[in-house]
């Protein structure tokens, strides 16, 4: 079995043309990941540029309204660019720069990873091209403008379902045609090895901070940590330093779209099966002949037919739970958190809030839940208004 496996999942299922590129990336990552100079540069970027550490906020009103477990919010929405995506991007851009690359390419769904990549490219003086499904460029028009403002080119992808999976395919195609000066800054814990490991390591700062912060505030570990899951980067970041703490429940919230009993869903663990796609072996929504399903979620960032290989493994061994949350539930949670705490979460993160709203009231008051708010919801306001029948446009 090849490199980069999480149980049976992972691997490097990519064209031969890209093999030396991922090998080069793995070698560079192994060289720099424990390098004190690299890490001090990255920490400086995290702290001084992105605004880390992000706050762990006790949501007292939310807790009291739900009447059960004590709820903390990990505020990744307060990072520069408004989402957890910047953690991974700063790490990869710095690595790419050390490798002598001058150009970044990226895929994006909701646009948060695209914006983060465009931001890092601007900061580090690199060229940047972002691939975004045409459908998503409409859903997230503001983010398209932000990327252009930051000096990036945005390429609308019209193939397939014109969403995140097609943006990934197109970015992979682009990388195949231009490797020497280009780093593919993949935005989630997916794709071929070493991406799932690199992205996890850069996002693991989330759980590292949660652990320190909750010990300071509560003097003990939480009973559950929760996050939304598309490819799964903020979720693995939230889980990682708790994987060894068996008493901490790890809960990933997938996008059920219109429901897991419909075809309009993106809940991979709940509806998918084992397959090979986008460079990895993992679970995918697919038909009986292995054709990848045209998935759906109101959330462009969770609208992906697969899940990162480490999540697939955590599911297999029963360490993490993966639950499905519908569009309706997520929109309710989006509005509920805005009204109770004055925090507008990204519609992606609202999936995790929605599940917390289900389980917190069932838990005793001395229990503690941490929900990662992976991003802020400004980008979603127009779409949610339309979902509620208000015809506003950005």
């Amino acid at each position, binding site marked *: 079995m090849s490199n980069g496996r999480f149980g049976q999942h992972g691997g490097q299922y990519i*064209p*031969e043309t*890209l093999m*030396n590129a991922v090998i080069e990336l793995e070698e560079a990552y192994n060289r720099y990941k424990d390098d004190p100079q690299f890490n001090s540069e990255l920490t400086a970027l995290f702290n001084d540029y992105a605004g880390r550490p992000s706050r762990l906020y006790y949501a007292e009103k939310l807790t009291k309204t739900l009447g059960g477990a004590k709820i903390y919010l990990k505020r990744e929405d307060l990072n520069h660019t408004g989402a957890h995506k910047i953690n991974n991007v700063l790490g990869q851009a710095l690595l790419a720069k050390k490798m002598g690359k001058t150009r970044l390419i990226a895929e994006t769904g909701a646009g948060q990873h695209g914006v983060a990549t465009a931001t890092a490219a601007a900061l580090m003086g690199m060229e940047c091209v972002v691939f975004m499904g045409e459908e998503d460029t409409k859903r997230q028009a503001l983010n398209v403008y932000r990327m252009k403002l930051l000096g990036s080119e945005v390429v609308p992808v019209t193939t397939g379902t014109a969403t995140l999976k097609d943006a990934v395919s197109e970015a992979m*195609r682009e990388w195949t*045609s231009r490797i020497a000066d280009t780093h593919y800054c993949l935005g989630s814990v997916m794709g071929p090895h070493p991406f799932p490991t690199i992205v996890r390591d850069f996002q693991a700062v989330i759980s590292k901070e949660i652990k320190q912060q909750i010990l300071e505030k509560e003097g003990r570990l939480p009973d559950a940590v929760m996050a939304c899951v598309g490819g799964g980067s903020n979720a693995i970041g939230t889980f990682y330093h708790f994987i060894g703490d068996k008493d901490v429940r790890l809960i990933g919230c997938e996008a059920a779209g219109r429901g897991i009993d419909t075809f309009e869903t993106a809940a991979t663990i709940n509806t998918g099966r084992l397959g*090979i796609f986008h460079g990895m072996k993992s679970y995918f929504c697919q038909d009986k002949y*292995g054709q990848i399903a045209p998935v759906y979620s109101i959330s462009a960032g969770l609208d992906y037919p697969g899940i990162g290989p480490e999540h697939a493994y955590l599911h297999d061994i029963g360490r993490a739970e993966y639950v499905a949350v519908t569009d309706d539930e997520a929109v309710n949670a989006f509005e509920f958190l805005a009204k109770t705490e004055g925090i507008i979460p990204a519609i992606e993160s609202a999936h995790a809030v929605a599940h917390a709203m289900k389980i917190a009231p069932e838990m005793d008051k001395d229990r503690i839940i941490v929900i990662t708010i992976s991003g802020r919801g400004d980008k979603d306001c127009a779409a949610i208004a339309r979902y509620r029948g208000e015809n506003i446009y950005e």
Partner: protein
Amino acid sequence: MSNTANAFKNGKAFIPFITCGDPDLETTGKIVRAMAENGASLIELGIPFSDPTAEGPVIQEANIRALSGGVTTDMIFDFVRELRRDVKIPFVFMTYANVVYSYGTEKFISACADIGVDGIILPDVPFEEKGDFAPVCKKYGVDLISMIAPTSEQRIEMIAKEAEGFIYIVSSLGVTGVRSEIKTDIASIVAAVRKCTDTPCAIGFGISTPEQAHRMASLSDGAIVGSAIVKIAAKYGKDAAPYIGEYVKSMTEAL
């Protein structure tokens, strides 16, 4: 010698590609027969995949046309079984890992052997991942075709030593599709391959004109053409077979 390698016995091989079911299997049947009648040495039969990440726009669209027409892996197996009654030249399937894996690798590969498909090309399965497929292919005598790219460099030896049937040399960076010029130093790649194996080499990606085919075949053992043919299929739809036959003839004559 495997049946796939037999395609290279009588001089330079011309290897055309077609997506099965574009726009329907009846048309694909006529196209395959036209290819065989006009001198094709081996035919690559594409099983469509929803997300063909190694393909350029031309073959991507063919995949979409075929899948929207309702073609499935089982229908393609039945179709090839029927085709094998009169078409004797080697066939290889070209598809993606998930199409095989999801169907059940053993079930898929044993079906290949049963219906007379001699090899399989999976562009998203590099040397490191062939363990999922190679042992099953060996068991059923189906060649798992290896690919070598302009970026392979020090990997060439490792890949070539274990190659079966023929080696698919990717002419240039990027995805499939017509190119006006192929700049890669193919001669040195072929030379590196020849040092480690007698397995024949054919060059693909970007070849469309008889001149290009001649040049690529003179550097190796054959030329593979996909997008240029699929373009004709797209243009003429159900009537494409004679036009593709004519094109294949011009290409085989140029070799």
